[in-house]
């Protein structure tokens, strides 16, 4: 092996080069272009692109209650979905890492919601909420099913949460399972022999060891919930009265339906800054808690 081939610059470019190249072309360049457009009044097709300085940003910050509202919805939605899907996803993964007889089948079952997507997901769940729930409600008289599902701000919000958790938990489960495979079983057995209860083992042994998986899952679920678009689009269309319009939807409508591409990308930039700050904080907090083996 020639020396130059193993030099640090060479290693850097060999290992990082491919990833960096695709990333720069597919993510970075378009995003930078987007930032450029955010300072213009471009409508998405015109050959005329006029710079408008910070006008778009000013509009968003001073004269766009809808954006603020979608931001607030997205924040509430994210917190709820992140908590619920991680707790449920972890619990499922934990139980399914135990020697249950049907665990392989069950893993597939919990993962299955992820194979549904797009318009059909909305179609199925709309039906479940508006028709099946009311049918069950009439038959059983349980209040939960007799709610006015998707018709009020609250039920629409929780409807979206339910579907997101239903999908997300199984996804996170996969990562938690991969994390749990790293926890040596002899360590857990030793703890059990020492008389630690199941909960203690979970808290003091398992959880610290799978912190990398927790970091990943938290970050992942945050980034999805923040970007949530398809489900809102197909299940509630942002309704009722725009109460479930996510930021991604708000951006999409501004840029494409209203032909205000510049304003839409300015929203995306603001949103990006907010989310980056939040996720950075989250990653640095959980990182501190990670334990090296």
């Amino acid at each position: 092996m020639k020396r130059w081939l193993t030099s640090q610059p060479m290693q850097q470019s060999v290992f990082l080069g491919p990833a960096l190249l695709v990333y720069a072309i597919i993510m970075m360049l378009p995003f930078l272009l987007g930032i450029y457009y955010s300072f213009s009044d471009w409508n998405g097709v015109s050959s005329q692109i006029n710079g408008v300085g910070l006008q778009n940003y000013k509009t968003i910050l001073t004269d766009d209650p809808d954006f603020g509202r979608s931001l607030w919805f997205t924040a509430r939605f994210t917190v709820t979905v992140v908590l619920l899907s991680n707790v449920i996803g972890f619990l499922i993964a934990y139980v399914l890492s135990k020697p249950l007889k049907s665990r392989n089948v069950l893993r597939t079952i919990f993962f299955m919601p992820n194979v549904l997507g797009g318009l059909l997901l909305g179609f199925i769940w709309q039906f479940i909420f508006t028709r099946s729930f009311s049918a069950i409600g009439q038959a059983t008289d349980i209040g939960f099913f007799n709610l006015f599902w998707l018709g009020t701000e609250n039920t629409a919000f929780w409807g979206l949460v339910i579907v997101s958790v239903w999908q997300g938990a199984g996804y996170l489960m996969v990562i938690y399972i991969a994390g749990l495979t790293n926890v040596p079983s002899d360590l857990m057995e030793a703890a059990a022999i020492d008389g630690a209860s199941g909960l203690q083992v979970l808290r003091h042994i398992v959880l610290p060891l799978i912190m990398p998986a927790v970091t990943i899952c938290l970050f992942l679920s945050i980034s999805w919930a923040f970007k949530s678009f398809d489900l809102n689009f197909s299940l509630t269309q942002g309704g009722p009265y725009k109460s479930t319009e996510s930021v991604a939807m708000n951006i999409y409508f501004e840029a494409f339906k209203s032909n205000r591409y510049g304003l839409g990308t300015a929203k995306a930039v603001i949103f990006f800054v907010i989310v980056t700050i939040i996720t950075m904080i989250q990653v640095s907090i959980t990182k501190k808690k990670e334990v090296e083996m």
Partner: protein
Amino acid sequence: MRKWLTVISAIMLTGSLLAGCGGKEPGTGTSSNKQPAGKEVTIKIMNFKVEIAEQFNKLKEEYEKEHPGVKLQIDTLLGGDDYNTQLKARFASGEMPDIFANEGYNQMDAWLEYLEDLSDQPWIEHEVDIAKEPTLRDGKVYGMPVGLEGLGFLYNKDLFAQAGITELPKTLSELEAAAQKLQAAGIEPFVNHFDTWFGLGFHNLNNAFAKQPDPNAFIQGLNDGTASIAGNAIFQDWTKMFDVVIKYGNKNALTTDYNTQSTLFATGKAAMNQGGNWLQPVIDKLNPEMNVGILPMPINEDGDLNDRLFVGPANNWVIYKDSPVKEEAKEFLNWLVSSETGQTYLTKEFKFIPAFTNIKAEPADLGDIGAGVLEYIEQGKVLGWHWSKYPNGAAPEFGASMQKYVSGKIDAAAMLSEFQSAWDKMKSRK
């Protein structure tokens, strides 16, 4: 096929070779898909309607047979709702079609600089007046209407007969009386789907704009601040019609979606719903035997004003100004509305209500609803579509306010003032 193999293997090789020594950067996927240049010309047409894709392909064969040397390439955009997004993507990718569709009015603003002036085309003299306005700009015509569509209340003729309604309602009080009769006969008068802003902000509210003495002057007034929605008498009348629709409609309208609504209506679970002739194919699939008609949407007691349907061009064909085959494209559009084959396709296959006086449509070809709309058009009892004149982004806001009203969160006055502020906010946004 070979191309992807090389690229993929290049990328994969990067990985595997490195296990030994050295390596290369992966290449970027490259490909070009230019049409081979020859004697033949190809007109690229972007079809906006998935429903007619099959028929369009048959039309293509006929046209190519009659016009040797000209090929049509029909691209049907997907999803229906996202036509504009996809068109923008085509544009950004440098693959602009030669003929595409545009709804006109403010939807044309963005594209105007790319549109060919069609003012000198022979079909213009036959074009019905109501179809001209959307693509007219500074005295120039930029689009050819694909066909007309009519909007009103669809009604189930059998259920109306069953409830003993012999005279079709032409005023608001008659509409309410009909609703009461239906209710008395144990029939749900209206089925509404208020789950999306679309049917509300566009179709329902259009009523109040269209019935202004001069809708364009009114909209102009809103834009320059001389008119207002809040104190407008027509808008206040319109809220009364909205009340009737809500009062005699399904209670869960806010969670009723388009599918459910169409199903309930087509299966006779309710007597009326707001809609247009575009619902015919859905009804044909759900209940082909259904006797369905279309009614106007009265907002007050003015019989003449209210006995009108809202009619407009479903969409318009436009031609890309920089297209190398724009002359051929013009010829194709002209052929579509002037040749016998083209006309037959428009009315019998696409089932469009013609927007040209020289095209004769058989009511039987258009289906029940289309025939009803055609009748109103022939009698000149029509009002326009104005939602494309709203400022961009205003319609979803209108819809949201209407949903709030339906749920009882705000009263009529608050709804109208929300309309006003939505208009003001959106008009100032550039």
